[in-house]
């Protein structure tokens, strides 16, 4: 909402209040000021001039030499290049010393040998936006088409000295979608008088009802409709003051009739519509719901197809307007219009909303109807328009607006006590001060002791319950004056749940392990949504959840894995020469197990690493990421969470390297995978070797075991033994390790692979694998024989079970 200070001053005295203070004070009262604009120009050297003589410049074809009366008997010679300048015009003259909005300073000058004492201005030069410059003056100077005094300052005349406040209104304050509504609030803030217009109109003897009747078919959609006939109109440009007002409100002047309805729209917040009566071609207005498939060509020239959800204004046959949204082209007011049918109505907000939504038409009118206009002022607004049509456009207003329906309003009654209000705000506002605030708001009320009863008027339909009055009183009392307190209730233990703490543990672990926490989009491309999905999720056979109406194909489906978007992030980095990237994301995937049902959300942690894992070149330490780097990170996580029984098993998964991929299992359930991105997929993303993992964090966290005991550090020595075997190349090391562990009991403490060799000097299809075994007993020193016995048992078992050959 754009609020002109000068316009506002018609209703409220703002003397002594700067525009900046006004902006701040109403912001604090709930009308948030977005911006204060202007004044554009207020220069006394810019005056009204009268062109007494205009001849061609002796030395230039395209220039004119004008003798201009600039008041006080002063006459100035001005060289003017505008094609439309001529004798007998009232124009705007910038005299020497004037400074124009662009910063141009006017000086006495010589142009092609002739003295020029100033400049005759175009509207653009005076700072008007192009869209407000009438067609006739687009390529030339502005000519004032009104009786004005020569020498008079021109800035006030063109409203350039006005300041405009842009207010960002909240959805509940539609009362301030009008100048009068804003004036109510400003008067309340400053405790000032309010001077509202009291429209009166001279009425002809002839009756409107001789020309028109009104019929309402659906009084729920259209509770009230008034039709007024105004004859003998002279359509032309509006007077300057009216144009100024509209421009300050951001509305382009068109002609006097249209401008007047717009003016009343801005003043009262009541949309009106003027039909050309002769083009309406009927003596009756029938408002009804549209028929299915009925069409209308609206003012913007578009043909619109209607449905029974839309309210239309008809002439008994065809639709001439979509009620409250836009008029029809057929009965548009044109330059030759002489009689108008003025519509002043109240339409149901949700019906108008439906119409404007379905046709994509949001106008100043529809946005007000949608929020509900002040039904008790519809007639007054119509009278205001009729008055102006008579005064400005020479119209003859026929007797009695023809009305159907009711403008009655049942005010909402809100009851409260002063102590209730104080208890809720946390203040001690005296009863008298509350009374004063309610009076300033101009609400009808009664008070009995400390009990108030407020009748909320139609203009303030946002007030309906006690809490609304808490807000009204608090905002005018001043939010600044509310004290700072903390709740006084019983102390309650808060904090993170064990699970939330674990999630933080996981985050901290992964960050310490070298991964960067990342955030990607949950909504992804359709094909990505179903890629890199972990086998236990894939086994559910679900489709990714699809949006009904995505903004873009890039974000149309909910992911089943974060990996595709993470790979895209890696690609972004690599494309910018950031080759070593390690990312992880902790977030949901969305599992819709039944059609149209709310999906389950599965918390996962996914990660991706590419490039060098170790990079310390001047000491020759450079190690690209490999399978065991990423596996090591995951193993460390499981150790950290005491989830040590997680097993890694070789797996072949879509889009992953068949020889470098494993699934992770917890108690035989798959909980995720880890592996290298398939070389062909790496190519798609333009990546070097890249490793990923996707882990079901819900399952991992469920299996977490908290450490609850402590093992005394033993004073007896541990004994180490190394064993190397030659085995089949395909034999997984884990099998040997497990077998050794089992056979080495009861004293074998740890088994660790310390060397793996295959290739030269090794039989085809074989590999050598060496283990480091640590034996330990907490109570005593182990005897050599015990170790030897265990060793032999292990060797024998491996020879028998795995055809392992002990190396010398």
């Amino acid at each position: 909402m754009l609020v002109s200070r000068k316009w506002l001053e018609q209703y409220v005295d703002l003397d002594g209040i700067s525009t900046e203070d006004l902006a701040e004070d109403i912001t604090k009262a709930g009308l948030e000021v977005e911006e204060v604009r202007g004044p554009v120009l207020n220069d006394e050297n810019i005056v009204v001039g009268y062109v007494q003589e205009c001849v061609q410049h002796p030395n230039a074809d395209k220039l004119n030499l004008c003798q201009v009366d600039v008041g006080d008997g002063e006459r100035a010679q001005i060289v003017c290049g505008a094609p439309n300048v001529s004798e007998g015009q009232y124009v705007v003259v910038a005299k020497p010393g004037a400074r124009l909005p662009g910063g141009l300073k006017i000086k006495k000058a010589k142009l092609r040998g002739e003295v020029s004492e100033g400049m005759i201005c175009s509207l653009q030069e005076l700072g008007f936006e192009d869209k407000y410059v009438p067609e006739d003056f687009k390529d030339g100077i502005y000519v004032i088409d009104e009786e004005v005094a020569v020498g008079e300052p021109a800035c006030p005349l063109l409203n350039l000295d006005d300041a405009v406040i842009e207010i960002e209104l909240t959805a509940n304050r539609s009362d301030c979608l009008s100048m009068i509504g804003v004036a109510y609030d400003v008067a309340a803030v400053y405790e000032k008088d309010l001077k509202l217009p009291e429209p009166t109109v001279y009425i002809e003897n002839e009756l409107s009802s001789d020309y028109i009747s009104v019929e309402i078919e659906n009084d729920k959609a259209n509770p009230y409709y008034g039709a007024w006939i105004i004859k003998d109109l002279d359509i032309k440009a509006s007077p300057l003051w009216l144009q100024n007002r509209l421009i300050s409100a951001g509305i382009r002047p068109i002609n006097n009739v249209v401008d007047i309805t717009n003016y009343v729209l801005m003043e009262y917040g009541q949309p009106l519509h003027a039909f050309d009566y002769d083009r309406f071609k009927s003596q009756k207005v029938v408002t009804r719901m549209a028929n299915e498939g009925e069409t209308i060509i609206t003012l913007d020239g578009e043909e619109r197809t209607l449905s029974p959800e839309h309210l239309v204004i008809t002439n008994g046959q065809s639709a001439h307007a979509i009620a409250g949204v836009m008029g029809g082209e057929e009965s548009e007011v044109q330059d030759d219009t002489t009689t108008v049918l003025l519509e002043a109505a109240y339409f149901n907000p949700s019906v108008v909303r439906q119409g404007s939504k379905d046709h994509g038409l949001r106008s100043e009118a529809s946005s007000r109807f949608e929020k509900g206009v002040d039904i008790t002022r519809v007639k007054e607004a119509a009278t205001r328009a009729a008055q102006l049509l008579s005064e400005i456009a020479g119209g003859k207003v026929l007797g009695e607006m023809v009305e159907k329906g009711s403008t009655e309003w049942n005010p909402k009654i809100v009851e409260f006590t002063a102590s209730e209000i104080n208890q809720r705000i946390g203040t001690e506002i005296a009863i008298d001060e509350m009374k004063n605030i309610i009076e300033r708001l101009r609400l009808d009320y009664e008070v009995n002791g400390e009990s108030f009863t407020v009748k909320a008027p139609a203009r303030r339909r946002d007030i309906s319950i006690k809490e609304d009055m808490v807000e009204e009183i608090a905002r005018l009392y001043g939010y600044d004056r509310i004290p700072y307190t903390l709740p006084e209730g019983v102390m309650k233990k808060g904090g993170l749940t064990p699970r939330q703490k674990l999630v933080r543990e996981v985050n901290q672990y992964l960050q310490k392990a070298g991964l960067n926490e990342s955030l990607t989009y949950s909504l992804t491309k359709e094909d990505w949504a179903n890629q890199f999905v972990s086998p236990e999720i894939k086994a559910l056979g679900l489709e990714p959840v699809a949006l009904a109406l995505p903004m873009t194909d890039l974000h149309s489906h909910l992911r089943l894995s974060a990996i595709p978007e993470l790979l895209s992030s890696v690609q972004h980095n690599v494309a910018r020469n950031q080759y070593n990237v390690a990312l992880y994301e902790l977030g949901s995937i969305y599992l819709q197990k039944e059609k149209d049902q709310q999906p389950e959300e599965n918390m996962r942690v996914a990660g991706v690493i590419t490039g060098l894992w170790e990079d310390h070149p001047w000491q020759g330490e450079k190690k690209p990421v490999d399978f065991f780097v990423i596996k090591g990170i995951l193993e460390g996580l499981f150790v950290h969470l005491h989830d040590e029984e997680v097993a890694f098993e070789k797996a072949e998964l879509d889009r992953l390297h068949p020889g470098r991929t494993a699934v992770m299992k917890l108690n035989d359930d798959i909980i995720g995978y880890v592996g290298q991105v398939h070389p062909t997929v790496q190519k798609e993303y333009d990546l070097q070797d890249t490793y990923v993992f996707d882990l079901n964090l819900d399952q991992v966290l469920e299996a977490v075991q908290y450490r609850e005991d402590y093992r005394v550090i033993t004073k007896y020595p541990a004994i180490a033994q190394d064993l190397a075997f030659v085995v089949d190349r395909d034999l997984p090391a884990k099998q040997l390790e497990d077998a050794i562990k089992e056979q080495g009991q009861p004293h074998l403490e740890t088994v660790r692979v310390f060397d793996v060799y295959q290739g030269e000097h090794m039989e085809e299809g074989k590999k050598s694998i060496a283990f480091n075994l640590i034996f330990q007993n907490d109570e005593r020193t182990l005897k050599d024989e015990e170790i030897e016995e265990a060793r032999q048992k292990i060797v024998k078992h491996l020879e028998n079970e795995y055809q392992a050959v002990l190396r010398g």
Partner: protein
Amino acid sequence: MDYIYHEEVYKLKERLNEIKEEALEQIQSAVDEKTLQDVRVYFLGKKGQITEVLKGMGKLSKEERPVIGQLANQIRDEISEALETKKTKLEQAALEQQLEEEAVDVTLPGRPVQAGGPHLLRKVIREIEDLFTSMGYSVAEGPEVETDFYNFESLNLPKNHPARDMQDTFFITKELLMRTQTSPVQARTLRKHEGQGPVKIICPGKVYRRDTDDATHSHQFTQIEGLYVDENIRMSDLKGTLNVFAKHMFGEDRAIRLRPSFFPFTEPSVEMDISCKICQGEGCSVCKGSGWIEILGAGMVHPNVLEMAGFDSNQYKGFAFGMGPERIAMLKYGVEDIRHFYTNDIRFLKQFHGV
């Protein structure tokens, strides 16, 4: 004592002195421990030069022997001492050489520690979580794919409510949608309490709006909301709580301002501004000349919301507030483009890993 020594005595004395001279010379010129060892063996060993001399003592008289013996011992000691001294010297030299060889250029870069770190948004969220949990709040979470009921209706936004226009929603079906705010978590949590206060929670999480991504809009972003429902909760409690929050997040020197606003789920509703850090309230381009920067929305929980969740709105009151970690991060660090939070450019991420 006037002995006339046997001539042999003089010869042996002379020999011993020669040995001494010779030994000291060789020790003096020795360059390594091996040479010293050889010298020791040659002069002092079992078959060494001194032993050789002592063998010649047989020809001497009883009185003469101790003279030579004493001298031999003395010279043996002198050689030994010279050897020790030289050995220490050589060791010292070797150590010095080793140290010199081991010297490094301390200005060369150290081995980088491969550490990752938190995402800026999550860091902001955790900081807010930590503040409020220290004040007795719990952290509540809820689904990102929500029902129309929890996202709208339970928050006093019935179907066809004009305020639904304020949020452009990604619908999945008529009843399912991507939540547009974290407020449904409040509604869910209230319901779980079955009309029994107090409820003290904050709810962080991802939310979604039907926006085209650009520098200031993101179809996915984060929110963190707070809710406190109890008997006798006042607007001044909201103001006090927000003041604690603002000072904690932005600094003790920042002032707050509440302005009336509108949200369907709170009444009265407020917006909170903090004083601009750049101009300290004087007005600058960052705060658009107002001296204030909008940080969050809040208000007193609407009675309809309480009632719908099974709370008696006469007995219980509450306040709620909500904010965008993106906005807080952008203000705090001057991040100019919201898309940075979701692009995961390593050069962006790394900047926020430290304190």
